[in-house]
């Protein structure tokens, strides 16, 4: 039987493709997180610190949206985090709010040296309530806590008080000095995991519901004893 190199090449290219896919899917859960807050509070830096462990003090305004992916292990589960970094500027707001709906967790960030950014926290939380799912988890983060006290305009207590009011977890963090960055993400992931464990409104018809979407061969073998659950 003569064999065709072409077939094999095709196979091998699909092999690589599929292999990559397989690698991509090597996780248990996928969480989408969103970082929001006023412009220049350090959202992008925060994300870069977490995802790449890098920091640059140069300020580059985020255009619209961006995201990074990181796979972590938490409570023996492999989690793929897709972390969205949003532009704080008002003019991108329609883009960024569109991504609220898919996010399971939010990091609401302000700058402890910028009173304005703290004042907007309330607005941001309203945004979350408006656009996101109601079971989304929120962590409030006061960034740039490495700054010395002369520069600080928002006291820790103020932040904590507001967070309590809004019902969010609260951290003060610094992307520059890598303070509490991982902790924030871990806490958020834990909150989501807890929420997941608590979720009891389980619809047992998943997969079955795909009767509508998935088309079987037209063999009406439905009644032949498949688990009806």
């Amino acid at each position, binding site marked *: 039987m003569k064999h065709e190199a*072409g077939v094999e090449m095709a196979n091998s290219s699909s092999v690589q493709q599929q292999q990559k896919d397989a690698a991509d*899917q090597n996780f248990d859960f996928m969480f989408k997180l969103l970082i929001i807050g006023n412009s220049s509070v350090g959202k992008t830096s925060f994300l870069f610190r977490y995802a790449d462990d890098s920091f640059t003090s140069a300020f580059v305004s985020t255009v619209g949206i961006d995201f990074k992916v990181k796979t972590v292990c938490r409570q023996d589960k492999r989690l793929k985090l897709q972390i969205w970094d949003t532009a704080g500027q008002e003019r991108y707001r329609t883009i960024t709010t569109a991504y609220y709906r898919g996010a*399971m967790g939010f990091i609401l960030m302000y700058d402890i040296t910028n009173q304005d950014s703290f004042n907007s926290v309330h607005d941001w939380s309203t945004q979350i309530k408006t656009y996101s799912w109601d079971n989304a988890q929120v962590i409030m983060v006061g960034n740039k806590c490495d700054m010395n006290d002369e520069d600080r305009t928002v006291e820790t207590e103020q932040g904590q008080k507001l967070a309590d009011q809004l019902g969010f977890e609260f951290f003060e963090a610094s992307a520059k000095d890598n303070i509490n960055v991982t902790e924030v993400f871990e806490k958020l992931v834990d909150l989501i995991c807890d929420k997941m464990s608590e979720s009891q409104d389980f619809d047992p018809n998943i997969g079955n519901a795909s009767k509508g979407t998935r088309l079987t061969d037209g063999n009406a073998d439905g009644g032949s004893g498949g688990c009806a659950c």
Partner: protein
Amino acid sequence: MLSQNGQNNLWVCPSDRHLMLRSKLDAGWSVRGIQPDKKQHSHSVSPEEMVHIKRVIARAENIDVSEQKRIGSMVQQLESMRKIARGDGVTRCILCSEEFRKFVGASPLICMDCKKKMCQKCCVDFSTVSTLQNVQRKHSNKASKSTTWLCKICCESREVWKRSGAWFFRGLPKYILPEQNPVIVASRYDVRPSNNVYVYPPSEDANPHKPAFGQQSSSRTYSHYKSIGRRRSSSSESSDNDGSVIERRRSRNASSSSSAISNASSPSLAVSYGAMSLSSSTNFGEDYRLTSAFSRHGSNNSNPSLGVSPQRRRVSGRRKKLKKTAMEEENLPKNDVTEESSSTIPPTKDSLDMSSLHSSGVKQTNDDSASSPHIGGSYIERVYTDVDNAGPLGSVEFTALHDPIKLALHVTVIRARNLKAMDLNGFSDPYVKLHLLPGSKKSSKMRTRTKFKTLNPNFDETLTYWGITESDMSKRKLRLMVLDEDRFGHNDFIGEVTVTLRHLTPLETKIFNMALDYHHTLKKSDEEDDNERGRLLFSLQFQEDDSTLLVNIARCAGLVPVARNNAIDPQVKVCLQLDEPGSNEVMCEKTERKKSTRNTNPAFQTSVKLPIIGGGNNLVKCRLDISVWDKDSFGREHLVGALELGIKSKGNELRHWFDCVKHPGNIVEMWHNLTFPPDPERISALASAGKRRRTPRLPRKFVS
């Protein structure tokens, strides 16, 4: 998940709903109007920014698609489990269809979710599962006193509910079933590949929490997941260590040593197995046309050619009805790409499985591959038909595919037509039984689910034989029997076909459509081979720094049940000792016991770590005994088979041992044949000695 709403142009304009919600709020920008960071040119986005944003969205779409695919494969797995469930849940176990008798045996349990009855083998103690998984920690604490039971299907669907994110969105997100692969391939590559290539840390075996399912089908698909995960971990490691991981699997006759693939660090890969040589240049994109030209040359009936989709699809698409194809395409998110892409990969039912097999078989990882566009390959499918007139018994249609890298033979039973009616009502309750000849009756038989009251059943089930080497393929025959399940008494034989596996080409799916034949009595040579005990796939890794030997028991195949019933509950024990007179110290470890009833091909994926007595230098002097045990219903253990690795062993075992000793740190994986040892007493003494000397067990992860 955003694209699921079809809002791809979200940045253009807020939807009416958003505006409406905003206006209802008494807070926010709509009220305050003035924001400190509000720029003059608000709501104007420059073209460059637009391009940037589009790029990000395209990247996100990539991720979304692969996520949808992941959910799709979970859903499919769940569905295949549902398809396999045979009982009615009232008088018979919902899953394995075992009948509940009034006084004999244990009473049935009731599934918490579906309220159906199931036998004790098919249920999952939900409270323990949840503790194990840590997922339901809170819940289990509450319910720890009253044990709750779930049938395996419901347990799996809960798992899917969580893993797909459905718990959050209160409904299953959009997903792409593996059949619809072509769409994914197309949509992945019509967007610009991302610049950020994330290399994930080498992660552990896929899903150690997932309950192991005794049902054959589920463990089959599950094992695919697992093996992918494991391969991934080793391959990603290889990219780190510049190709230091040697992973080999060899056939028992070592004839297919050519199938051994080592990790070449060069970007082009050259794999050869048998007569087939697989080579690919780095430029996959240009091979595209070549492929179709070659495949045209290679196939008899089906001529896959580029761009010709509907026809091609009909032939290659594993006989999905046209109606289905049409409707499927309606359902697809991107109609425009379907046509083009369907010619690249036939939308076969298990194309994901097969291709994942291929992918995991080839160990070459090219991290650049993420950014280099390449196009999915095509499988040639030949139709072998001898059905002009179905004959008195009817016909059966199935496909067979041999993967010489993973040593797997996949048989998909598609359908049977015009079967002879066996029951008084004018119908039959057909199922298909596979038998690999020559081979033990118990271990080489697999069956599909029964389709009730039909003469034209559609099975669509894939059954996989593991550890099938090329020499097996040249010698063995596959026998398909169509039988009629009789609820009260002996099952009736309808007809059978036998195909010689020699005619299969590696990695090529072949479709058979054959008229059923009357019953043949088996030739003596086809009957049981007493020496056959089953096969075992495991890997060894010699860790020099802490002088330990890491043994990963991957899976067993074709285990021969030794207890009286056909069930088998296998457990693997691993013992390491100094092979010198006078040394009594034995390090023993064992895997969990697979309570799998009829599964003779259990996947373990369990790693055990054995300290080497007297330091790493002594490994050469050690011998490793691996034995597989079955437990009968009285709790007695029976030896299924064993093998020994050491400097005194021979053949594959010696080679494996040698590779392990010679390359510390490398994971060496190989299939082995189990034999019945000449000294079973020694093995059982060893195994029981190990009970006293057990070392703390590692979590079921591969520490590398």
